[in-house]
């Protein structure tokens, strides 16, 4: 019985005593807050804050987003976003699709975007399909600039064309694990 009562007693003494009172009171309050906090940032900032792929992250595969993406890391694969910013030391090997693509790093592949900005530090190896382009002095481009975005009914039209890819990767292990338990 004392074991079960133990939790109540400090709370009782806590409420009567002055100093320890906030602690037991704070704990039950803190938990809903902790649960609420992770929930709120995607809802609040999801529209304004981009997804961040930092310089310590390397992705081999395909990314798609209906929002902005900030890339500072390394990506080996295609990227689809709305606003895509590729930072100074970032590397992308593949095609970048978006409404607005800002490049300060390296792309080895292709850009297909309505608006393209190549900063002075940009290194672009491959074609750029655009409607509107800005190139700063110092940018390196090895490829064609084609102002054809939207004219050819291209793949860049929708962001969500990536979905119907078969599950590969870890699926055999997953399925095996699934079957076991």
């Amino acid at each position, binding site marked *: 019985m004392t074991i079960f009562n133990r939790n109540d007693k400090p709370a009782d003494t806590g409420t009567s005593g002055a100093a320890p009172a906030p602690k037991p009171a704070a704990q039950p309050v803190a938990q809903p807050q902790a*649960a609420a906090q*992770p*929930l709120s*940032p*995607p809802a609040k900032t*999801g529209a304004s*804050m*981009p*997804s*961040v*792929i*930092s*310089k*310590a*992250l*390397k*992705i*081999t*595969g*395909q*990314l*798609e*987003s*209906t*929002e902005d*993406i900030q890339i*500072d*890391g390394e990506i080996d*694969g295609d990227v689809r976003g709305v606003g895509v910013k590729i930072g100074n030391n970032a590397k992308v090997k593949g095609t970048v699709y978006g409404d607005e693509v800002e490049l300060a790093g390296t792309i080895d592949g292709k850009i297909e975007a309505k608006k393209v900005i190549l900063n002075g530090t940009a290194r672009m190896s491959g074609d750029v399909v655009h409607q509107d382009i800005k190139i700063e002095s110092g940018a390196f481009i090895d490829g064609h600039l084609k102002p054809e975005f939207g004219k050819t009914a291209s793949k860049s039209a929708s962001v969500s064309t*990536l*979905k119907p*890819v078969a*599950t590969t*990767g*870890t699926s055999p*292990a*997953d399925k*095996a*694990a*699934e079957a*076991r*338990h």
Partner: protein
Amino acid sequence: MFALSRRPDARALSAPRGVELPPSYLRSSLRIRGVLEAECELTIGGVVIGRIAALKLVIAPGGHVEGDIVAREVVIAGSLKGRVFAPTVAVEETAHIDGRIFHHTISVARGAHFDGRMPWRPISYFETLDQLPETQP
């Protein structure tokens, strides 16, 4: 199969604690299919289908991961289908897990949905984890 990630796994687990690289945050609108190798903290609010190696991995509420995870520390508040290999694991109350968690220390919050096993492993198991084992029934 996992040859690509052997080195990053080893680095992620053996990197000195003091060196903190900027964290990555994948928001709810972002879907990734592929292999993620992070030598930093990685928070996933969206969908990742594939393998993840990270220093610390957080699956935020609403986040969904399908695949294997190797990290030094994992916090799961979203949904996961697959295996976790991490010495320290925390399962939050909003978690929905279907799979296995290979751990050294684990906490599971009341309310979490967990379907699977949580095998304990000595800490040396995680230090030498350069290739993911095939789990036996």
